[in-house]
């Protein structure tokens, strides 16, 4: 194939990634130049870059098409997820101001790692080629491995980083092996070509099935779905809270986007082979996540198990292997990002220096001591429970609607019963905040800084808007889920 030099419009279709890489590099360069600690200049630059990238993504959405020898596909689906992961990045950076100044760890490194990770996620969601997907996955993952161990002197953070790194590389190896097999079978790494090849009746089902299974292992690991979820509690507990917030939202959303794109673009013709496997994984994730979360007393660990359960809900949407399922997964990921990031940022705020106060009992009496923080956390928790008028409810409703549409009655019943079990452990936190009095050992939280307040108001607003006026996001998700055809 003759490769012609890319046209100008192809750069526009790659605009968010370009902006993010430039700002990420800029921060690395500035890092040794600016020695003034405690300033928030790095954070401000980082926010600037992310906002520019967000605008870039919105602009790129007007230039739908492919780029760079069909490696990049700039469609509504890609831009939905680009906007999502970049927005997550913005909220995380805002929410980490407090953490960074508290731990005296405000460096350009932190922010450039966030930006590179977001750039990697943007590449993941907008590429139509397995090789580029892999590259994006690696860019995002390597940045997050480092972020997990960002506090070098903290032993738990180190443990988290090592675990995450070792298991993560292992999972990526599976993914890569799947790619190599599919390349050997079909002669291409382009998803559209693979789809065309697999639509012919003479496809070698066994080899394709094996490679799909290998990719499934890699992706299930990345989204922390069962049975590859064991890393998540340790990593989320050990990593600094803003990083846990990031891990549980951004990379997960991007991995789900890749999941959807690969399995619904390249492998729809063999869906009868993979959906039963995803069915089991979805049910296991929901059940293991929710039941393990019931007994946790460390709130970060509890949120980690809860995020496994929520990955299970999204897997239900994928099991439905339909357009509605894809749209439901997209909507849910947006809602989930809002509520989960919000909850983790509150945890980061309450945890205090060295993250010593992460027990549920440390939230006792918060409703009296900091009514606004408590009210915001309540919104996030009620959304995680799935109470109507929040994004979490509507997302869950839409997912199970997609599942029933595909006749998965048992998965729906078991999944929804799971969410009733889940209500208990979220309510325990609400109970601690409002129904119990603070005791002498309860830490007195610092006043809520303005940056953190913004970082909480944005996702809270998102949670409510997605719950009360879901139409705009829903219609866009439905429209962009058509990429499959």
């Amino acid at each position, binding site marked *: 194939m003759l490769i012609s030099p890319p046209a100008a419009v192809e750069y526009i279709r790659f605009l968010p990634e370009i902006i993010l890489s430039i700002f990420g590099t800029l921060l690395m360069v500035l890092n040794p130049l600016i020695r003034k600690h405690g300033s928030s200049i790095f954070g401000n630059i980082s926010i600037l870059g992310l906002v520019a990238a967000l605008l870039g993504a919105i602009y790129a959405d007007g230039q739908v098409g492919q780029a760079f020898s069909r490696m990049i596909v700039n469609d509504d689906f890609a831009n939905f997820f680009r906007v999502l992961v970049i927005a997550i990045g913005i909220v995380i950076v805002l929410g980490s101001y407090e953490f960074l100044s508290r731990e005296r760890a405000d460096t350009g490194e932190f922010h450039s790692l966030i930006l590179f990770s977001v750039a990697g996620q943007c590449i993941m969601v907008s590429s139509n080629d397995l090789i580029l997907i892999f590259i994006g996955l690696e860019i995002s993952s390597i940045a997050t491995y480092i972020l997990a161990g960002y506090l070098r002197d903290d032993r738990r953070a180190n443990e988290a980083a090592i675990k995450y790194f070792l298991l993560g590389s292992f999972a990526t190896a599976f993914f890569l092996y799947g790619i190599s097999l599919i390349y050997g079978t079909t002669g291409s790494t382009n998803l559209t070509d693979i789809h065309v090849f697999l639509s012919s009746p003479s496809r070698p089902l066994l080899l394709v099935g094996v490679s799909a299974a290998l990719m499934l292992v890699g992706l299930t690991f990345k989204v922390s779905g069962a049975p590859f979820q064991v890393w998540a509690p340790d990593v989320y507990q050990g990593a600094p809270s803003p990083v846990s917030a990031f891990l549980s939202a951004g990379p997960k959303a991007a991995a789900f986007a890749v999941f959807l794109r690969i399995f619904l673009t390249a492998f729809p013709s063999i869906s009868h082979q993979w959906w039963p496997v995803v069915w089991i994984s979805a049910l296991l994730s929901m059940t293991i996540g929710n039941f393990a979360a019931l007994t946790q007393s460390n709130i970060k660990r509890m949120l980690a198990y809860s995020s496994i359960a929520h990955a299970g809900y999204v897997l239900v949407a994928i099991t439905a292997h339909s357009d509605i399922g894809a749209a439901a997964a997209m909507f849910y990921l947006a809602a989930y990002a809002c509520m989960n990031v919000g909850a983790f940022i509150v945890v980061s705020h309450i945890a205090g220096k060295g993250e010593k106060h992460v027990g549920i009992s440390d939230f006792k009496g918060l*409703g*009296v001591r900091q009514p606004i923080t408590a009210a915001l956390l309540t919104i996030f928790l*009620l959304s995680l*429970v799935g*109470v*109507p*008028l929040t994004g979490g*409810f509507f997302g869950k*409703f*839409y997912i*199970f*609607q997609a599942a*029933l*549409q595909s006749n998965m*009655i048992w998965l*729906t*019943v078991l999944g*929804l*019963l799971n*969410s*009733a*079990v889940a*209500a*208990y452990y979220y*309510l*325990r936190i*609400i*109970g601690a905040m*409002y*129904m*119990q009095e603070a005791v002498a050992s309860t830490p007195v939280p610092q006043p809520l800084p303005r940056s953190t307040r913004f970082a909480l108001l944005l996702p809270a607003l998102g949670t409510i808007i997605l719950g009360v006026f*879901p*139409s705009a996001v*829903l*219609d866009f998700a*439905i429209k962009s889920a058509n990429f499959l055809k």
Partner: protein
Amino acid sequence: MNLLNVLMLLPLAGALITFALPRKSPQFARLVALAIALITFAGGMALATNYHVSGTPQFVTDVVWVRSLDIHYHVGVDGIGLWMIVLSTLLAPLAMLASWNVITRRVNDFFALILLLEFALVGVFSSYDLFLFYVFWEVSIVPFLFLIGIWGGERRMYASLKFFVYTMAGSVLMLTSMIYLYTKVRTFDLTTILSALSSGRLALSPAEQTFLFLGFFAAFAIKAPLFPFHTWLPDFHEQAPPAVSMLLLKMGVFGLIRFSLPLFPVAARDNAPWIIVLAIVGIIYGALLALSETNILRLIAYSSLSHVGFMVLGVFTFTQLGMDGSVYQMINHGISTGGLFLMVGLLAARRNSTAIDAFGGVAHAAPWLSTAFLITTLAGLGLPLLNSFVGEYLVLQGAAEANFRYAVFAAIGVILSACYMLWLYQRLFYGAKPDRAYPDLDVREWLCVVPLIILMFWLGIGTQTFLPAITGTTSHLLDDSRQSIPFRVEAARAH
């Protein structure tokens, strides 16, 4: 703007305002919240006077909420919803008055949550869209969660979490049924689904009907609560501030009538025998437990389990009288059990206890309070000329029409209710003179008590004020479901 929408917007706006009011002057927050609740009640009265007896919903608003899923904001009032809405708007200001001085902590939040609850209740009783109904149904448990959790008794956290998780477990099964129905007809609109059913455009096989019916039933049976799904109820009432207990209206029974019966007429009839057995067991079991209870609030909770048995029995007799009676009992329950909770709240405020043996001889010290309590007690046990007599009589008559044995067993419950109520009254108000002063009713307390007592007599004597609207709706409901049964069985067979 439609009056019904005003009735929903007012409490919602009121709740937000009360949350936002300065926390330094609780008295101001109380007054604002009460004023809004009273205006809403005036609106509720206007709703009742402008309602014309007929079988179709009135004050209808139908606008699209989520277009791609065809979810509508579709609300309206029928003869059943009407009285439940009026009852909600009446009980909310009374609950506020009753907790006026009792609630001293986080006053703004308490009054705002009462208004929020009122908003959700009006929504539950007026939704004609399944999705919308689910939204209000679930939203209504959130204010309860906080009202019990923050201002409740010693074991408030346990009680409120238990209530929430129980209700949620039932609700999600109902949600499954709703979504399944949606995948069949592509709409959540109750009237559209009903017309699809009666025209045969939507044909559900008997198995489908049964499972869908059971999904809805799970939610309603837990919420009502029907024996054996009742175990959250005693904890709820024991821990909740009595004024909050007043507002636990019988949403579950309402849901059975509004949704289960018309949507799944065949399944409802097929499953009626065992449901009736559960109802009768609930009537007697509740009464027996009430007899052996040592805490006033738990006693009333068990008595309300017994009442719910009556309501469910009435519904599943599929007779005009039984249905009317059970709707009547839903209203009565709000008035007389609500009244009991209110007065126990008054007693508890004087003694700081709800154990029966903490009281005795109160009649000497506070004659007016005891008289009010006596009237409420008699109303609760079904004395003629008072409200419950009408409802219980209608239910028993309906039950006798369906199967005489039902009426016999249910009547045992009536006898037992006289036993536990009168015994309770005796233990609380007679006996040795109390060891302390019991102040009699003050002005505020009179204001709480009098409207309820007037209504007890009104509902007992002036039944024609209330019954025509109820009958208009229930007869329509029964006709509809009766007509469509043979047709649908045929259609299912063809299917």
